Every structure is written in structure tokens, then in C-alpha cells.
């Protein structure tokens, strides 16, 4: 088990290295892209361009540039943004993290509860009209672009029905920190939570239903019934428990991706200044240090989630444990 974990950690480090090089190459080596031009502003003179290049070390060889940036990012942690002069990148990301975490945690709670309810309901009601109906609803949820759902939610809660009793409590777009005003935090995030969770409710309900039906035909379920257990107990303690394995590992991966900046579209639509929003802004400004930092941060969470899921899986199921 220990060698397994060590190997996973080494692999994770390698992946992070390759990703940082990849991002560096994308932004520096694709011909026609010039970070100096992005820093210098509109129509810079050649002298200013050269000065900017020298000042930001863009005239140095590629490995030196890469090394300097990694040193500033990981060791001295004083990497400075190109477009927002003087702004240090690492604290900027640290400041944006609570918003992203709030958004993703809340959405995750909603999607896990709703997906289990829908998946179990569909599997239990198999053969009735409710099962296909629930699955169609789940499929519609999967088919809706999240940013569009967000816009429609804004249209309804901020404009059309804002003056009715239904949505008069919805505050203007933006994020209120939990420590500052817990009630405002909750009110401001409720609509974004629901918006973000719709896709995942649909996905997970479908996966759970399929797994439940698959497990239903296993021998141990028959044995449990033969022992005379109640249907309720068979469902909760035997079928559901074994069906949750795929669900849990998927959850780990999706949660990692969302914390890593995958909630970017939701953050942009609801003006929540989290990590995804920061990434989006830095990309539009070609602000390489911020892009690099957010990508490293994102890759870190994804690799971490992958690693935890793998280790958890190996812990739960000895068959996948490598010797």
C-alpha cells in the first residue's frame, strides 16, 4: 500500500510538471503570441516593447524563464501579475478560494442529496411511469448548458419575478463572504448552487439508477431477501451501499474538477469572484503569471482528487490494489 501511495504521489508531481511546461509553451512558443505586447498596452513602440521584454525577463532563454517563474511561484511565492502591476498572484488566488469552495460545497450537498433521491426513486419505481419520467428529467438536466441556465435564473430572479414574494429575497449578483454575513452568503449563493448542481443531479441520478438495477440482480441481494430482511433494509444496507462505489469515485473526481476552476462558467454568470472567475479574467488579459498560478492550482486539485479516489478505491476494494 505504501509503495502504491508513493508511486501515485510521484506520478502526480510529474503530471504537474508536464502541465506547467505545456501552459508555458502554449503561451510563449505558439508563434504570433507575444506576452510583452499584452503587457505594454495598445500600439506600443518597439523601444517600449524591448524595455518590457527586458524588465519581465522575456528576452532570456526559455528554460531560464520557466525556472524563474516556477521559483517565484513555489519557493519565494512573490510571483507578480503582468497586467495588474504589483499584484501578487499567490495571495490573489488564496483570496479567491473561499468563494469557489462555498459555491462548490453547497452545490455538492444539493446534488448528492437530490441525485440519491432521484436515482433510488427511479430504481424502486421501475416498471411504473415514474421511472422513465424521472430519467427524462435527468436527461434534460444534462442537456442544458450551465451558463444558459444561470442566465435564465438571473432573468427570473433578478428581473421578471424579482418583485414578487417568490424571489424578492434574492440579493444582487455577487459574493458575500460567510464570515461577514452568513445569511447574505446563503441568500446570494442559493441560486448559483441550484444552477451548478442541475447537471450533476442528472448525471448522478442516471448512474445510480443503472448501478442499483445492476446490483439488484446480484446473489447477495437474493440472499438478503431469503434471510427475510425487509425491502427497506435490503435497499438501504445492501443494494444502495454497493451501488454507491461508482457514485463516490465519480463524486471525488467531479468535486476536484469544480474546485479546480471547473465552476468557471457559473462564477462568470453570477459574478462570483472565485478562482474560475480569476482564471477567466487572466486569460482574457493574457496575464501569464496568474494563468500559470491558477492552472497549477487547478491541476493540483484534480491530481489530488484522482489520487485520493485511487487510494480510496484500493483501500475499499483489494482487487484493484497493485502488489
Amino acid at each position, binding site marked *: 500500500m505504501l509503495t502504491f501511495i508513493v508511486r501515485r504521489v510521484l506520478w502526480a508531481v510529474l503530471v504537474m510538471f508536464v502541465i506547467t511546461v505545456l501552459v508555458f509553451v502554449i503561451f510563449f512558443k*505558439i508563434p504570433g503570441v507575444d506576452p510583452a505586447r499584452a503587457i505594454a498596452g495598445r500600439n506600443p513602440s518597439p523601444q517600449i516593447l524591448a524595455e518590457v521584454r527586458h524588465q519581465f525577463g522575456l528576452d532570456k532563454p526559455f528554460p531560464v524563464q520557466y525556472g524563474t517563474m516556477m521559483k517565484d511561484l513555489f519557493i519565494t511565492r512573490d510571483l507578480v501579475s503582468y497586467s495588474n502591476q504589483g499584484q501578487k498572484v499567490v495571495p490573489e488566488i488564496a483570496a479567491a478560494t473561499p468563494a469557489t469552495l462555498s459555491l462548490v460545497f453547497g452545490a455538492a450537498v444539493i446534488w448528492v442529496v437530490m441525485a440519491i433521491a432521484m436515482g433510488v426513486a427511479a430504481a424502486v419505481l421501475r416498471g411504473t411511469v415514474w421511472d422513465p419520467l424521472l430519467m427524462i428529467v435527468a436527461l434534460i438536466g444534462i442537456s442544458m448548458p450551465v451558463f444558459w441556465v444561470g442566465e435564465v435564473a438571473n432573468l427570473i430572479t433578478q*428581473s421578471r419575478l424579482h418583485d414578487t414574494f417568490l424571489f424578492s429575497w434574492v440579493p444582487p449578483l455577487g459574493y458575500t463572504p460567510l464570515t461577514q454575513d452568513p445569511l447574505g452568503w446563503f441568500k446570494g449563493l442559493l441560486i448559483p448552487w441550484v444552477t451548478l448542481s442541475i447537471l450533476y443531479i442528472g448525471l448522478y441520478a442516471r448512474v445510480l439508477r443503472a448501478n442499483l438495477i445492476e446490483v439488484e440482480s446480484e446473489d447477495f441481494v437474493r440472499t438478503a431477501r431469503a434471510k427475510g430482511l425487509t425491502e427497506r433494509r435490503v435497499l438501504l444496507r445492501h443494494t444502495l451501499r454497493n451501488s454507491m462505489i461508482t457514485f463516490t469515485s465519480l463524486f471525488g473526481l467531479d468535486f476536484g474538477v469544480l474546485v479546480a476552476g471547473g465552476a468557471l462558467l457559473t462564477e462568470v454568470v453570477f459574478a462570483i469572484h472565485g478562482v474560475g472567475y480569476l482564471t477567466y479574467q487572466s486569460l482574457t488579459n493574457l496575464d501569464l503569471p496568474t494563468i500559470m498560478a491558477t492552472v497549477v492550482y487547478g491541476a493540483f486539485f484534480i491530481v489530488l482528487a484522482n489520487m485520493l479516489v485511487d487510494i480510496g478505491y484500493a483501500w475499499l476494494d483489494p482487487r484493484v490494489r497493485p502488489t
Partner: protein
Amino acid sequence: MAAILEQAEVATEVRPAVAGRNPWLLAGRQLWHNRIAMAALVLFLLIVVVCLAAPLYANHVAHVDAFANNLNGTTVVNGKQVPLLEQGGGVLRLGETPIGPTWDVHHYFLGADSLGRDVAARLLYGGRSSLIVGIGSAVICCVIATVLALIAGFFGSATDSLLSRSMDVIWAFPVYLLAICLGTVLLTHSNGFSVGPVHIDATSLWPPTLIIALIYVPYVYRPVRGQVLTVVNREFVQAAISQGASNVRLLFSDILPNVVSVVIVLLPLMIATTILTEAALSFLGVGVQPPNASWGTIINDGLTLLYTRPWVTLAPGIMIVLTVLALNVLGDGIRDALDPRAKLRVKG
């Protein structure tokens, strides 16, 4: 009870005749009898046909140019000429609001956007771009992934580990971030870019198509490689090897036909995914570029008008939902027909 008897009858009648039939024919027949999947196919084809007819609608029904600004234009509502952009209210009459939906197919059916362009005509042209990018990137992605999976699974050892590790690295990148990175770099300078002798214009549909195709390669690669690995060790492949079949022959006549069903199951689900991705990228401004429109860019155009003229945002979203829903239902049907054990799943 009658239904069960009927089914039993059909089963006993059909079984002897079916034995030895082409598996594709069987799958096709099963799909044909899946009424929901067929309805989804009809809906999807309908959307494709309507979108392909965009120039016909623009030129012969609505008589508009979907891409030219029309700030001072007028249209007819209830027999009266009205300006497309209404001046704002108040003393200063600041700001302009484009005309809303007239629900008259000849005159700005869905209203105008902030540049006075016909939203309905743009919706159809946008659908063309969205479908071209979506289908194109899904097909390109599946072809690249299949070729790589064949190579990796067939040659094994070092080739396999190299390819599979590279895929894992792309996998560790959040797909949207990778796509937005590439989109930003390739589209923000207006001249386009050159790959060898081929010059690709940044405003053409190629950059988003290729970017989206690239980022989803690992998603198709993994299941296809798994299938290649199981097929490679089957007896018929061993028999072909012992008869001295060349590698190319083994790959394309023995292995490929046995993995292609995996790709076919994935294809409609991939198209659904790529259409959603295209919309997201275009919404963020790093997908389809003007003068081309797509459903994503129209939603983006509608943002400033969201509270006054919501149909500019609502209509393309509804089109996306219908298209993607049809593809997902169709994909489910194809999976049920081709892969009864249904182990495959694509994340949306």
C-alpha cells in the same frame, strides 16, 4: 397479459430466422423499434435541416442580411412601419432597445439584437455553425482517438505506456481550462495561424473545431483502447497472425471492425458534449468568432439585453437543449442496441 403473449409469439417467430444475421442489422432493427430513440433522431434531423435552410429563410422569407448591422432599419408590425431600434424613454431619450419578437415569420420573428440584426435568421445561421463545429469536432476527435487507441493497444509495451500517459496528462487538465487557454492564444490575434503550409484563419470555424476535438481525445481513447486490448488477444487475431497477416491488415481488417461499435456508441454522446462545449467557449468569446455566429455567441450577444429582450438569450438556449437532448436520447438508444451490457458512459 395479452402483451406478454404477443411478445412471446414474436420471440418464437423471429428467433430461428435471426440466427446468423449480421449483428449490425440486428442492432439497426432494435434501434428502429425503439420509438423514443427514433423520435429523437427525427428531431435531430429536423434541426439539422432547418439550420441548413438558413440562407433560404434569410433571403426568401425574412428578406434580411443576418450579419450586417441594421441600426436605422425598420420593419412592419401590424401593418405599421416601426424602427428596429427604439430610442430609450425619459427626457434625454438615452439608450436604445431593439424591437422584441413580432411572432411574424416575415418580419423579425424573434426580434432584433442590439445591432438591429434579425435574431431568427441568426439563430438558424448560428445553428449551422454550432452543428458543423459540434459534429466536425466529435468526428475528428473519434478518428484521432481510435487511431491512437489502435496503435497503443496493438503495439503495446512502450508505445502504449507513452500514449496512455500522455492522455492521462491531458485528462488531468480541466477540459474547459485547456480549451479556453488554446482558444485565447489561437484566436486573440486576428491573423490566424499556420500549421506547416496550411494557413488557418482565426475567424473560420476550424480553430474551435480543432481545439474541441483535441481536448476530448482522452475521453474516447480510454474506452476504445480497452476494447482493442480485449480484441487483440482473441483467437481469430492469433489465427490471422499465424497466417502471416501484415500489421496493417491485422489493424484494419481484424481489429478495427471489432472496436468500431464502441466508437459508434460514443459518437452521438460526443456530439452532444462538443455542442455544449462549443456553446460555452463561444459564450466566453473564445469559440466561434465574428462574422460567424453560433448559438453560444448569440447567447453572449443577448447578455446586455437579458432583462429587456430575453428572447435573444432564450431562443438559442432552447435550440441547444433540444439538440443535445435529442442526441443524448439517440445515444442511449444506440448504446442499448449495440452494447446491451451498457458499460460505457460519457460525461456531459
